[in-house]
């Protein structure tokens, strides 16, 4: 984060410089297009260089983002993006590590890593494009889907209480928690910038409509609003607020100051060969 282009006096990059030449496979109108654009804008605004940023994802429509950026990308297997991001950041602390994906990838198969990433507080920014559906596999209920949403696999609805990502993040110790809407590009960009700047694990849920399998989500644009209260640093208060809101309050809803995961690299490095000494009789 210190090794920015600006600090080095180099020409500052534009958002477009953070996009690759690949054409996204997304459906026309998918919310993820805006998210991609916003991420590139945020990276440009932060004066980062693409080679110093890594974007890590799992599997899903939303998880395709890495290859659409011009950064280093890791498009891994379903549900394990946060673990890969953790390994990378701990091994290479000087890189800026973003983790991106969907509600299925992050909260269904990947739920455990989400819990533990929040606790561990490694300095990663986790961006989830929540469309309350499995887009990639053509329309099944995800953990954030309403219980009465009818699908072929769960006729009449899953009947299960939706997973509340922000509440779980808070309860697990996430240090920075925000909710955005892909249609609100400016607000989303600001949240992502803040999230990247914030030390430790930052979580941004972006409501990102799936026009194909959730056409009803076109209404989100009317429903979202800025959160009526300012950011708090009290997790219990934040939790109470989020547990009782309707899921459409946007903004940075919690910002804490727990120190990030400590990586103990000794400066004085020993010769690996000498490690055997202890076995000498």
């Amino acid at each position, binding site marked *: 984060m210190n090794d920015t282009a600006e600090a080095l006096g180099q020409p500052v990059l534009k958002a477009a410089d953070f996009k690759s030449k690949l054409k996204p496979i997304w459906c026309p109108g998918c919310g993820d297009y805006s998210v991609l654009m916003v991420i590139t804008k945020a990276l440009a605004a932060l004066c980062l260089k693409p080679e110093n940023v890594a974007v890590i994802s799992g599997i899903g429509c939303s998880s395709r983002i890495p290859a659409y950026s011009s950064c280093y990308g890791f498009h891994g297997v379903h549900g394990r993006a946060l673990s890969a991001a*953790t*390994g990378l950041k701990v091994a290479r602390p000087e*890189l800026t590590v973003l983790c991106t994906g969907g509600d299925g990838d992050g909260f269904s198969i990947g739920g455990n890593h989400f819990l533990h990433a929040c606790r561990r507080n490694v300095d990663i920014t986790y961006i989830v494009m929540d469309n309350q559906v499995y887009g990639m596999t053509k329309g099944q209920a995800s953990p954030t889907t309403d219980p009465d949403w009818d699908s072929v696999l769960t006729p009449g609805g899953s009947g299960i209480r939706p997973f509340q990502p922000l509440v779980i993040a808070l309860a697990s110790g996430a240090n920075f928690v925000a909710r955005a809407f892909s249609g609100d590009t400016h607000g989303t960009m600001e949240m992502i910038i803040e999230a990247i700047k914030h030390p430790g694990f930052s979580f941004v849920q972006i409501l990102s409509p799936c026009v194909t399998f959730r056409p009803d989500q076109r209404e989100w644009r009317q429903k979202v609003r800025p959160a009526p209260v300012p950011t708090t640093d009290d997790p219990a208060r934040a939790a109470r607020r989020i547990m009782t809101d309707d899921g459409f309050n946007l903004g940075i809803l919690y910002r804490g100051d727990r120190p990030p995961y400590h990586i103990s690299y000794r400066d004085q490095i020993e010769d690996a060969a000498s490690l055997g000494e202890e076995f000498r009789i």
Partner: protein
Amino acid sequence: MKTLSIAVVGSGGTGAMTTGNLLLEAGARQGCYGLQTRSVGPQIRGGEAAAMVRLSSEPINCASDQFDILVAMDWNNVDRFASEIPIGPDSLIICDPAKGEIPQAMAKSGAKVQELPISALAKQVKSGRDNMIALGAIAEIAGLSRESIDFVLAKQLAQKGEQALQSSLESVESGRKAAANINKRPLPVGNRAGGEHWIISGNRAMGLGAIRGGIRFVAAYPITPATEILEWMAPKLPLVGGALIQAEDELASISMLLGASFGGVPSMTATSGPGLSLMIEGLGLAVCSEIPVVVVDVMRGGPSTGIPTTSEQCDLNIAVYGLHGDAPHLVLAPTTVTDCLFTAQWSVVLAEALQAPAIVLSDQFLGQATVIIDQPEPIELQARRNTATEPGANYQRFALTESGVSPMAIPGTPGGQYTTTGLEHTPAGTPSSTAQNHALQLDKRARKIQEFDYGNHWADIEGQGDQAIITWGSTTGAVREAMARLEHEGINNIRTVAIRLLAPAQPEKFAAALAGVRRILVIEQSHSAQFYHYLSAHYDLPHEREVFHRAGPLLMRAGELVEKIRSWSDS
């Protein structure tokens, strides 16, 4: 080769293990080589325990056929060890008459019995302990000098204070005195040439070899019997600029490795069968995205949770074939406790050179046995990954090179940006579903693994003759000892091939190693003969072939192999 084998058993925290450790170290001071294994009952703490020490005049790599001395501080549930501590009429049982009858399983051996009032003696010493009485008695019988016992006790009890040391020394003296009249079973005279010696377990050797090979990132989840690898590495890694993360599960550990190694840092984990099962998907990603990682599987009895504290060569199948899709990768196995050091180091080097996952198959015996060995020579093998340091405008991460290995751009390198993926892809890494790209990348990934020159390390080949024993992993030690004995008997027309590089198969080298061989005997510790079937699938074996295999947890013993090989061999 002369050896002396001593088993010390006891329950309820009597400290049999401590006695075993001290015996091994004291033997080492008197010039012996040695090997110690241990066995415990199901209780988490304070159950029955057995320390099995074998001291010898030459380096050894397997447990003994029969124990010379069995010292029982009590007999609680000790029958469970009967098959692990074979004794016979030549053996000596030392036991405390106050602790009841010798169990039938032991008594029927016909071993000579010598009673010793162990706990009564211990009570006579202030804070005296049974296991120190036992140590004294064994020291006396085996001819372990006061100097060596004093030394190892002082080292062992350094933290516990003068008082503890004093009472231990007194207990040992009392044990010596009580055993003064027992016939001696002298320590083998050590043949150790000069030079330094080490005392090390396979799990620690594995950790050391890995760090020496270049590992600087470890993520892992504890599991028996692999945890000691991790516990040894945890404080060491920061010293060499590395890090270890305790992950929430094995799915996370393998994925963390992939992230770290994508970042250019050689990465490893250690686990056992159940954990390996959970890493299968991640290993497939490592193959497709060509990210090197090393996964050590310290095998235990299977299937499923199985028998966690015991040894079995039963994970060969999953290691070689466990990945979905056509997924070429490396599988290696150390052949001895000492070889854990080399094989770990080589595995890191190969994984890094080939940008592929390497699975290393150790087992509970290799991992948890402690040996006395000559200080290993430093091994000149260092991880060297082919990286793209100045990627040009047309840089392609998965370029179709002749070797199949393509330079890898490491995050932070300007101009090298690409997205790695588990989807099939073009040379540039763009997802592609065409038959052409699929074939090209499948070919490339197979080629780099298959056509690499692995040199001579792929197997250890010993002996001459037109018959051959083929084996692998921890069974090698028992095979070697059996072969040495058979040579003594005059049987010298049998070769031994102990395969270290299990996958990829090396059919040409194998054919050369077996030139002139008419018949083979495959030896392994697996109920379904996994190794034999693997060989049949990938090698051209002589028509005359046989397999000697059985399940764990009993270790293969040289004695049973001598019988088998003698009857099989037609010399």
